[in-house]
């Protein structure tokens, strides 16, 4: 294909997206579109499965049977969401094994929030309330993204995730209506998870490199800063309702703008964690690599068994 042909195809392609047409896996697409989508969808999938670990940490210690079942179901959903997303990514011509390889070698990224430790039960509440809350804001617009398989996976994810945030908020609410000790536990969790949650929306618009292209391909509908503001505006009243305080002395309602002003995010911390030096980066990666390596003989056995069975069937038939 000549350069001119490609350019022509690209124009047609961009026009289709602009008309809100969906792109399906077998359609022609610019290589950059494919690569960007592999990167973003797999990063999203990795985040789901790494995200199982901090919450999985509390399954055996959940304080009631009801909470234990809900948490278990929630962490399982995350495995499901990882699976839907890996499948969407695989339609772009890359296997799940290759994607794992990228994760395990450190080439692929995942959401940094999961590199923070879960040290009390209240962290289960804070994660559900804040981390899932932030994730929902990021994810809902993706239900309309341009790549069909990704959009469909996100519709399923968003539908299933609706109970996650409520589960978290209910944990917080119960703690805040409980004893002084419980309320202190809730406050402490908010103190530790608030800023990392704000960082989930990524660098400020001025620093963000991918935004313009992502907007065009509908991988993004609003900028990082807009989404962050939306999150803060909707979360502050929820904290008030709980009766706990957001750990930001500069947080205050701006009547004129109709939104909250807030303090400076510690971007040094953000980059430290992104670059692999957060509190749990090593532990999270080790857990994934171990699960995968320890599972190899199991996966191989299932494959060998399937092949033997296939041969037996053929032998029987002939």
């Amino acid at each position: 294909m000549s350069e001119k042909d490609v350019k022509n195809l690209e124009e047609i392609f961009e026009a289709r997206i602009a008309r809100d047409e969906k792109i399906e896996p077998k359609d022609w697409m610019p290589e950059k579109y494919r690569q960007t989508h592999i990167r973003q969808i797999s990063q999203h999938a990795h985040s789901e499965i790494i995200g199982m670990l901090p919450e999985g940490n509390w399954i055996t210690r959940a304080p009631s049977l009801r909470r234990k079942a809900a948490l278990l179901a929630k962490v399982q959903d995350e495995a499901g969401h990882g699976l839907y997303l890996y499948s969407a990514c695989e339609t772009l011509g890359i296997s799940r094994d290759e994607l794992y390889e990228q994760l395990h070698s450190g080439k692929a990224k995942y959401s940094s929030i999961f590199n923070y430790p879960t040290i009390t039960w209240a962290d289960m509440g804070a994660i559900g309330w804040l981390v899932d809350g932030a994730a929902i804001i990021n994810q809902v617009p993706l239900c309309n993204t341009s790549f069909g398989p990704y959009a469909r996976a996100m519709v399923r994810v968003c539908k299933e995730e609706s109970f996650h945030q409520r589960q978290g908020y209910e944990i917080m609410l119960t703690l805040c209506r409980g004893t002084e000790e419980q309320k202190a536990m809730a406050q402490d969790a908010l103190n530790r998870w608030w800023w990392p949650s704000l960082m989930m929306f990524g660098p400020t618009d001025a620093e963000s490199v991918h935004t313009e292209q992502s907007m065009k391909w509908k991988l993004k509908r609003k900028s990082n800063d807009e989404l962050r503001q939306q999150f803060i505006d909707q979360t502050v009243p929820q904290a008030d309702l709980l009766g706990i305080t957001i750990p930001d002395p500069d947080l205050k309602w701006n009547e004129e703008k109709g939104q909250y002003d807030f303090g400076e995010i510690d971007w040094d911390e953000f980059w430290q964690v992104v670059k692999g030096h957060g509190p749990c980066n090593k532990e999270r990666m080790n857990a994934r690599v171990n699960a995968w390596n320890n599972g190899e003989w199991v996966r191989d056995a299932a494959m060998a068994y399937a092949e033997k069975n296939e041969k037996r069937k053929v032998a029987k038939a002939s």
Partner: protein
Amino acid sequence: MKNLNLYNYILTIADNSLILAQRLGELCGHGPNLETDIALTNISLDLLGQTRSYYQYAAKISGEDKTEDDIAFLRIEREYKNCLLVEQPNTHFGHVIGRQFLFDSYHLMLMEKLQDSPDETLAAIAKKGIKEVSYHKRFSSDWVKRLGDGTEESNAKMQEAIDDLWHYTDELFFMTEAEKVLAEDGIGVDISTFKKKYYEEVSEILKEATLSVPENKYFAKGGKEGVHTEYMGYIMADLQYMQRTYPNMTW
């Protein structure tokens, strides 16, 4: 307690589900791949659901002001009546599958009898449980075959797990005082009636999986009377951590 025997009988069944669910819960996020992880978590959730139904019933008949959580979290280790099999650790995936398979086979036979109990609550829990446990058994038997008849390595690992766990199978059929009394009353199940069938069925699947059936002369017991393996203390430490550290609170 007026219904002490019935109460103890319920716990004898329910504690198995709780402790096995707890063991499976440890695995969530660490399975050999996503599909298997999700499947094992489903089993854990089924078992937890059963546990809650049993404990709610036990709490009701206790005549005391108890909740399902009091029963689940606030007994001392010696008061847990689960068999030793379910508390065995997730050493490797062969042990996870072996433990599940040896328990599911027993569990299904128990549920099939229990559904005919004149005690309506127990019968209802069993009826619902049968559907779940049938699936568990199918899942675990399929995996025993895959691992047994898979690669040389998986065959060795599966055999190792079965050899390790076989030691705990006899206890499944040990009858506690409460079980004897309830079996006589016709409310509980006389588990000794299906011991032979259990070993036949299990052996058949092991053979199909190209595994050898262990020929133990000696077996462990004690769990059903509250004398557990050393693993149990650590299960308790996790399970009860919150309730013990922060007593008398609502979660």
